[in-house]
């Protein structure tokens, strides 16, 4: 049933496609980490319309499918003169989608900071920016790093969806290989095993990170 010769013959292609998958994950995650900050600041803003708008944006992005968002960015934007490559569209969609999740993670980190810290900053006459940069963020982010790590793994597992907009990542490659030889068993199984392996290793890494961070606090 299982043909090792055949498996070995397509593994190099699969590994090459894995690089695309991993780079889409990393770029998308970077985008999400950065975009999450303005979202959480907007949501916590004292200016009501901005807070409402950001909350609406976050809720909408969190309750609609990533696939639909990817299609929207890839097919609708070019109609108005902004076209993206499959990679760019996929990374933007992943980044935006996960930015809404990460903003909630940041929020929980910020809200866990005792009020006394804000008061101490006020007592020391710190400016708003200085309060955030040197007191709040350094205490709010490290405890939530493991949660962010879990979202990174989640994002990694979501990248096969980008195959829907013709990005030749690992699943798309497996499909192409399968279509050539009419054998889907080996390529798709190997993709599954690679995902299992990589996400298991990363989740062990996240757990270790969690332990180390807990030691510090």
């Amino acid at each position, binding site marked *: *049933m299982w043909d090792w010769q055949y498996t070995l013959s397509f593994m190099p292609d699969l590994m090459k496609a894995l690089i695309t998958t991993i780079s889409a994950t990393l770029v998308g995650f970077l985008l999400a980490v950065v975009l999450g900050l303005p979202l959480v600041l907007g949501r916590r803003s004292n200016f009501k319309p901005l807070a409402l708008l950001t909350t609406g944006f976050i809720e*909408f992005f*969190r*309750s*609609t*499918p*990533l*696939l*639909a*968002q990817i*299609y*929207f960015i890839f*097919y*609708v934007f070019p*109609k*108005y003169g902004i076209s993206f490559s499959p990679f760019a569209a996929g990374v933007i969609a992943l980044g935006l989608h996960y930015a809404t999740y990460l903003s909630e993670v940041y929020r929980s980190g910020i809200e866990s900071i005792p009020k006394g810290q804000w008061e101490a900053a006020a007592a020391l006459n710190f400016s708003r920016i200085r309060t955030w940069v040197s007191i709040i963020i350094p205490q709010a982010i490290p405890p939530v790093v493991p949660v962010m790590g879990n979202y990174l793994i989640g994002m990694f*597992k*979501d*990248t*096969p*969806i980008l*195959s*829907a907009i013709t990005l030749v990542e690992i*699943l798309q490659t*497996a*499909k192409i290989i*399968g279509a050539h030889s009419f054998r*889907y*068993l080996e390529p*798709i*199984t190997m*993709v*599954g095993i690679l*995902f*299992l392996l990589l*996400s*298991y290793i990363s*989740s062990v890494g996240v757990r270790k990170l969690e332990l180390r961070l807990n030691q510090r606090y």
Partner: protein
Amino acid sequence: MGVSELIKKLDQSSSRRIQQERRVFPIQPPFDLLPQLLRGAGITIQLTIFSTVVAFIVAFIMGLGRLSKIRLIRWVSTIYVEFFRGTSLLVQLFWAYFVLPLWGINLTAMQAGILILGLSYGAYAAEIVRSSILAIPKSQIEAGVALNMTQGQIMIRIIIPQAVLIMLPPFGNIIIELLKGTALVSLITLSDLMFQGVMIRSTTLRTTETFSMVLLIYFVLALPITFGIRRIEGRLSKGRA
């Protein structure tokens, strides 16, 4: 230049402008797309309901399995949970749809969708079941022992009713995640909401309206889940600390 010529020229330029505007804003009211999209939404709802049922059954079996005293059961359920949480949902769907037939197991797209969505989100929900049961204070079990209850009685009368309360909010999130996950079945040719959207786009090229409607319908479908869970939560926690 005669007046009639001037009028003709003006007319031409204005009609050209209208054409140009049409090209920039080619949006027509998308209500005529609704019947087809709603037919797809019906499939999406069916899929969500059936897979949620499968997911919860799996979640309780595997969640309790991970807490079992028998090592074999614990191992099997741990491997199950790690396997489904460790691989990509879309890869699992492809596997069920393209690879399983090689062993003579021919699933329709609907069956494959319900099965994989249920098994996959069941693995996530199993972790919720497990952590909620672990969150019940030990003294509750001891109280049950003191009252001479059997282990089964302690589980059913004391632990589960309290644990379910803790489970509800995260379960609501899982159902929303599952609803979003159903969009992936369009890639294994099941004609759900997403699939209908893609079909309409490729036949009418009304991209903006179609995909906006699709996003909007998904959002509307998720709303009752969000509010429903919030209400149940409020009702269940009534009269409790």
